[in-house]
């Protein structure tokens, strides 16, 4: 397939039906991975020697935190692409990803607080990891609010894209915060450079849950993107066809 045929999908008109066909598969995969992950997480994975049953929060907390950072990078990528090339679909994708990213960041902070109270002894501390993740949540909310506040969609996209790109600086800070500074949050268990310091079944459950979160995020973002496409292109012929 040559390059030009791929570019065809960069137009909302041809991406709309493609996304519609893909979405049910992503929902199905999300459910399958989620059920498998939760089963392993609750019934197969052993109790942790230090934390007892409380450690099982990682099956939600870690995938949510990973997704919150990764979605931000993807969102900033699309926003930047839209800013540089002026492609309509890129800005729509960025807009579609933001609420899911915000949800993941909120979930990460919330589950972390629930776990932190019994384990650390505090719901919240202003350590570098927690604070930078909170900033990430505010960046998502700021992006959503900024886009919603500007009526002209093209200007809204530009303003949002600049905010999204500026915020990218925060993502490596979140990731490396536990390495660079003294934090209460523990260091990372999963590393690219060495074997994970975690029992096999725990790791399996966590990775399955991470896959489930991936699939959910893609499904939710594509569903939202379709709605945005219809809304923004409501005056065009193809939308009239698609709605009929």
């Amino acid at each position, binding site marked *: 397939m040559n390059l030009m045929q791929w570019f065809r999908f960069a137009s909302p008109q041809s991406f709309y039906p493609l996304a519609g066909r893909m979405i049910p598969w992503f929902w199905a995969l999300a459910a399958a991975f989620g059920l498998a992950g939760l089963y392993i997480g609750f019934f197969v994975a052993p109790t942790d020697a230090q934390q007892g049953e409380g450690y099982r929060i990682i099956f939600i907390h870690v995938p949510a935190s990973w997704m919150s950072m990764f979605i931000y990078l993807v969102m900033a990528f699309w926003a930047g692409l839209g800013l540089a090339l002026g492609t309509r679909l890129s800005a729509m994708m960025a807009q579609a990803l933001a609420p899911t990213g915000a949800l993941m960041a909120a979930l990460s902070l919330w589950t972390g607080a629930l776990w932190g109270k019994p384990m650390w002894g505090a719901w919240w501390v202003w350590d570098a990891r927690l604070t930078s993740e909170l900033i990430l949540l505010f960046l998502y909310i700021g992006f959503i609010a900024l886009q919603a506040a500007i009526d002209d969609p093209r200007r809204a996209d530009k303003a949002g894209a600049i905010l999204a790109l500026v915020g990218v600086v925060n993502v490596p800070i979140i990731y490396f915060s536990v390495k660079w500074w003294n934090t209460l949050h523990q260091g990372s268990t999963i590393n690219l450079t060495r074997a994970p310091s975690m029992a096999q079944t*725990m790791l399996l459950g966590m990775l399955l849950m991470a896959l489930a979160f991936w699939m959910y995020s893609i499904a939710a973002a594509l569903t939202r993107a379709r709605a945005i496409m219809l809304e923004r292109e409501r005056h065009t012929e193809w939308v009239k066809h698609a709605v009929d």
Partner: protein
Amino acid sequence: MKPRHKRIALIAGGLASLGVAAVFVLKALDSNIALYITPSAVIAGEAPQGKAFRVGGLVKPGSVERRGMTTHFIVTDTVKDIPVTYTGILPDLFRDGKGAVVQGRLGADGSLIASEVLAKHDENYMPPEAKHAIDQAQRAQNGGVTK
């Protein structure tokens, strides 16, 4: 240069300068971002005088003494020790030999009167049987060394 290329260059340049700015800001804030200081730093006089601060380290094995709601223990970074007195409920993960972050003020005798004790745990997750096996192996090794 096409306008599109110009925009890409502007965005790349903007991101690069932003990154450099962030690095400088973080470098300047370095000591303020840290949640706690080490016992060595406290002994060296780096702790703020008359103000609450946090010390982080390991709970020295065998140093925990409980009297009712009051607990005495020693926080160490294996080089220097700080004795701590705390009245209140300790978190689940507070244990001998494990990490802890203690907030409080220095008393006249150089000990820390804590207002809050947080447990800092490590990034290792393992079932109790594996932990037991590791402990036994370590004990056997240590026993072999002393013989």
